[in-house]
């Protein structure tokens, strides 16, 4: 029998011990130290800051997001204060998160392979616990060309550039690469970033989509296209995590459409090591983390699971399940 009185949601991710497998996903309220701290107080086991690039960006004009019924669509446009200022925000966020025991993930994007390395080096000054490399934002295509997540070669090149840029640091933070769902073979991309030195994989980013208002005869978003998240993304994300978990031995931050504790359990069963939570903040408020934690704990108790680790990879084919348990 498992002892369920001992914080059953506590789990390991890389070198980190998390009090919950829920991770605030990048791009969701991660714009300030105080909002990151709020997500942590609400129950997130780890929090990810909004992606930052080399220079400040205002983002796209309104409308930037809406709930279209099956999920959300957004094209915020990578609003950020630039890497230098972001490093200061991350340092302050770390200070607020430390007493809560919640690790901090920095998220970076850039327009070129070399710039990815430069931005990584700047944000590393704040000593985040992990750097997430966003090679898959779907909303800035006009400015940055095809997202780097589209091809194994470009995904690997970015991963390699970031690893090299961090290698000279005394304590380089581990790197997770955030993949796009809209690729023909996500396992290939996952293998490419693993071979290039990624320590973890975040899967997935939003799915490119469009909402048209028929009466206006216009796409609703000012950017016309945006990223689909929320309930519509969940089956897409589950499948992607399932494929990646069989392709590589890296830990996975499984992200996409997790709104409830049972959703989180499903993501773990698909092979995720921990579970990203984003759009749930719209559906359930910032309190979503506390609610999902409670629901996951209830589900585990009802089904007889004693730890998060027991759920990981349960829905994988038997051979992959055993392999995954041995490695991650």
């Amino acid at each position: 029998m498992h002892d369920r009185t001992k914080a059953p949601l506590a789990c390991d991710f890389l070198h980190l011990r998390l009090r919950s497998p829920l991770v605030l996903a990048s791009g969701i309220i991660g714009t300030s130290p105080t909002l990151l701290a709020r997500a942590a107080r609400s129950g997130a086991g780890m929090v990810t800051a909004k992606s930052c690039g080399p220079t400040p960006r205002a983002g796209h004009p309104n409308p930037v997001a809406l709930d279209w019924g099956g999920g959300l669509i957004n094209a915020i446009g990578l609003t950020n204060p630039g890497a230098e200022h972001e490093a200061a925000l991350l340092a302050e966020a770390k200070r607020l998160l430390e007493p809560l025991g919640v690790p901090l993930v920095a998220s970076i994007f850039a327009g070129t392979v070399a710039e990815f390395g430069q931005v990584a080096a700047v944000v590393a000054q704040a000593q985040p616990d992990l750097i997430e490399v966003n090679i898959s934002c779907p909303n800035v295509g006009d400015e940055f060309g095809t997202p780097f997540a589209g091809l194994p070669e470009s995904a690997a090149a970015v991963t390699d550039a970031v690893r090299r840029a961090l290698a000279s640091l005394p304590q380089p933070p581990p790197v997770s690469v955030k993949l796009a769902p809209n690729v023909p073979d996500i396992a290939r991309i996952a293998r490419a970033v693993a071979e290039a030195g990624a320590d973890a994989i975040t899967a997935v980013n939003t799915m490119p989509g469009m909402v048209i208002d028929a009466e206006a005869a216009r796409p609703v978003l000012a950017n016309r296209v945006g990223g689909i998240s929320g309930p519509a993304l969940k089956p897409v994300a589950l499948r992607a995590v399932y494929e990646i978990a069989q392709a590589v031995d890296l830990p996975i931050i499984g992200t996409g459409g997790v709104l409830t504790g049972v959703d989180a359990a499903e993501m773990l069963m698909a092979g995720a090591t921990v579970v990203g939570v984003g759009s749930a903040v719209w559906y359930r408020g910032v309190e979503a983390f506390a609610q999902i934690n409670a629901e996951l704990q209830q589900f585990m108790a009802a089904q007889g699971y004693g730890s998060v680790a027991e759920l990981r990879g349960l829905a994988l084919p038997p051979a992959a399940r055993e392999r995954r348990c041995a490695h991650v």
Partner: protein
Amino acid sequence: MSEALAGLHRPYRVASIRLENAATRTLVLDRSLAADPGQFVMAWLPDVGEKPFSLAGADPVCLTVAAVGPFSRALHTLAVGDRIWLRGPLGRGFAPPSPAGHALLVGGGYGVAPLRFLAERLLAAGWHVSAIVGARRAADLLLVEALAALGVRLWLTTEDGSVGLRGLATDAFDAALTAAPEARTTVFACGPVGMLAAVAALCRTRGLPVQLAWEAHMRCAVGLCGSCEVGAGWLTCLDGPVFPCDPTVALPMG
């Protein structure tokens, strides 16, 4: 908050237009919306933009708009029969406690916009309602006749003294309280951030419950983008825009 109605923009037509003062008009739309005073909508004009507006009425939907920027000026060019798209209602509105008591409404500048809607709701629920309406000068006062017509007891303040008490809306606070009926007073305020902080401070020292309609830079309005953060981690779009405290002082719990 995720109810289907709140998500997609829906087109409305302008049914009539009321001129409120030289810079402000109320667009009366052709349909109603189930909403509370203090809640807001994101108003969209295709190819122009999208901005937040507090509801000035819900049955039918009314938006009181001051022409202060490109988008609000575009709204002022709308004629009867023209279309405007709204998503919402969004956020948390005013939540009058029960039982009904005395409501002191404090509105500064354009912040008066949702207070007629609030006064109507409060009166219908049996509240005694008084209001302080403040503005820079007489010509900027908003909805004074409308509130008076509802039977709301009014105190007016102008910074130049052209009408009413010379000073800020908060300068009439004690006079309005002294004249209040024998009932528990709840203060409902909407206006510039400085006024809201001052109202919150006055209510704190007098032990009065307060509800403050905050204003913030609004982008996604669905709790994702962080643009509307106020204080240490409050989201104006989800936690507000009406707060039962000064969000720049109090900490959000979770």
